[in-house]
């Protein structure tokens, strides 16, 4: 009888789903699913989609995070008064290394240098003879700034949608306002309690748990929508941790993505949301002088997720900006 019981238990466990297997808790990535639009380069397989005429000027989109994905930027394809970004441009959407539906990597393979090489490859692939416009939201705006500081010749312009702090020093100034880790908040206790049931011991489970954290109200000052939440495919927990860690020296925020930005004299469009009290209008006014030629557009009635919640109001000034730089 005990042997029979043991056999039943073992058979039952064998029939259980594997939490580490992609496709169960989180979607498969491009390297595992050939139906996902993809491109392989630099030793990785990326989730990449393009929209528009392949011969048109190229806009490369850089999603937020780090560790996010481009799903929340797809409404930027919506028409504004009958005109769409992709009518006159080729839009290159992609999930950054180790995020979204792109292939997963160990933490030591997610570095600033790898991110730099990945973006260079995409620019050379889709626009080998002409500089591109970078359009980055939040972390994507930081990524764009770092790239511009290192490769200004590859960039014709930039739309920086409420970028996070471009230096560690700026981050230190605002970090107390940035995160609200109220120890008695229900979402935080839900998150830490969930770790006693699902451990972040592989990519699938770590990404899954990060999704739960993403539902929490970690940054109330950003005033993101609770009724029209930004969608995502799959968080990149390891990539997020690696990128954050690389910006730290002895536990202190030490990145500086502004070195050399003064060499970039082409016009840059900053966008800021009216409601974000942390990295909104006032904060972006402090960041704009890192560039030689920047102007600001405010997205009224929106929080930090304005590319998702206010796509028309976001795209309209982008179209005007592109016209103004002849792109």
């Amino acid at each position: 009888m005990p042997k029979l019981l043991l056999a039943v238990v073992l058979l039952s466990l064998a029939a259980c789903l594997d939490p580490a297997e992609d496709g169960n808790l989180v979607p498969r990535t491009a390297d595992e699913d050939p139906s996902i639009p993809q491109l392989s380069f630099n030793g990785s397989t990326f989730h990449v989609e393009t929209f528009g005429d392949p011969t048109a000027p190229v806009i490369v989109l850089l999603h937020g995070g780090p560790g996010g994905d481009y799903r929340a930027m797809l409404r930027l394809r919506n028409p504004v008064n009958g005109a769409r970004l992709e009518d006159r441009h080729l839009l290159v959407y992609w999930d950054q290394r180790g995020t979204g539906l792109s292939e997963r990597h160990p933490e030591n393979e997610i570095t600033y240098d790898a991110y730099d090489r990945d973006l260079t490859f995409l620019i050379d692939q889709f626009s080998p003879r002409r500089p591109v416009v970078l359009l980055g939201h939040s972390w994507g705006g930081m990524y764009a700034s770092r790239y511009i500081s290192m490769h200004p010749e590859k960039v014709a312009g930039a739309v920086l949608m409420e970028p996070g702090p471009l230096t560690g020093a700026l981050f230190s100034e605002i970090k107390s306002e940035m995160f609200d880790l109220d120890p008695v908040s229900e979402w935080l206790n839900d998150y830490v309690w969930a770790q006693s049931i699902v451990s972040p011991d592989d990519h699938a489970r770590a990404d899954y748990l990060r999704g739960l954290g993403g539902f929490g109200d970690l940054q109330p000052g950003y005033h993101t929508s609770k009724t029209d939440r930004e969608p995502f495919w799959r968080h990149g927990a390891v990539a997020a941790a690696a990128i954050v860690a690389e910006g730290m020296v002895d536990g202190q925020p030490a990145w500086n993505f502004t070195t050399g930005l003064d060499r970039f004299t082409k016009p840059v469009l900053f966008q800021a949301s009216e409601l974000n009290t942390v990295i909104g209008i006032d904060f972006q006014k402090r960041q704009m002088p890192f560039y030689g030629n920047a102007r600001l557009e405010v997205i009224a009635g929106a929080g930090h997720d304005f590319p998702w919640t206010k796509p028309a109001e976001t795209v309209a000034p982008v179209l005007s900006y592109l016209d103004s730089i002849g792109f």
Partner: protein
Amino acid sequence: MNRQTSFASLLAALAIAVPATAQEATNLPEGARQSVSVELGLQSALVTRASYSRHIGSGLVYGRFTLPSASLDLRDFAFEAGGQITALESGSWKLQASFAPVVRLTDNDLFSATALGVRGALMPGYQSDRWGLMLELGYEKMIATHLNHSALYRNVGYSGAKDGWYSSTGGTLQAGLRGGYRLGRAELTLAAGVLTTERLNPVQPPFYGTLGSSYAF
């Protein structure tokens, strides 16, 4: 006698021969065989924990209910019911071992879960009538977990998330110290230590700390 009967007899003999130990950090007062306790603190969330234990010879059986208490949500809790024995003893120095099946429930924005697991712990240390201090080395393993995904996750995250029973969704290692001081029938207990996943990846927060009180009768 078959092997199982012999083993039960051996346990019974040990229970009679060895002085009673306690789940507490100190020895129970003379004549007491049961205790109730309450702990408050941080251990995978802010928790309130209520326990009952009944001492049987050198061991005890216990039941323990843990409720995350930041905001009262009865869909999140854990319950374990198990036993503890004194495996080795020399004077007031003891090595105690415990084992218990555990059930954990949660309901959050992403999923609801019912997790079935086991918890084992070794507690070597000093245990006298007045005070005690022991190392706590624990391991909890979720063997099978039933997950149901929320409409929110399906709408804004992964629509293909699979509901059902999952094997081995998690495991937590714990290492810390537990100390106690007895005042008559009451004992005050303080415990603190570190937590990691079973593969030594960090959890948030990576430490625990509880303050408790028990009453023996």
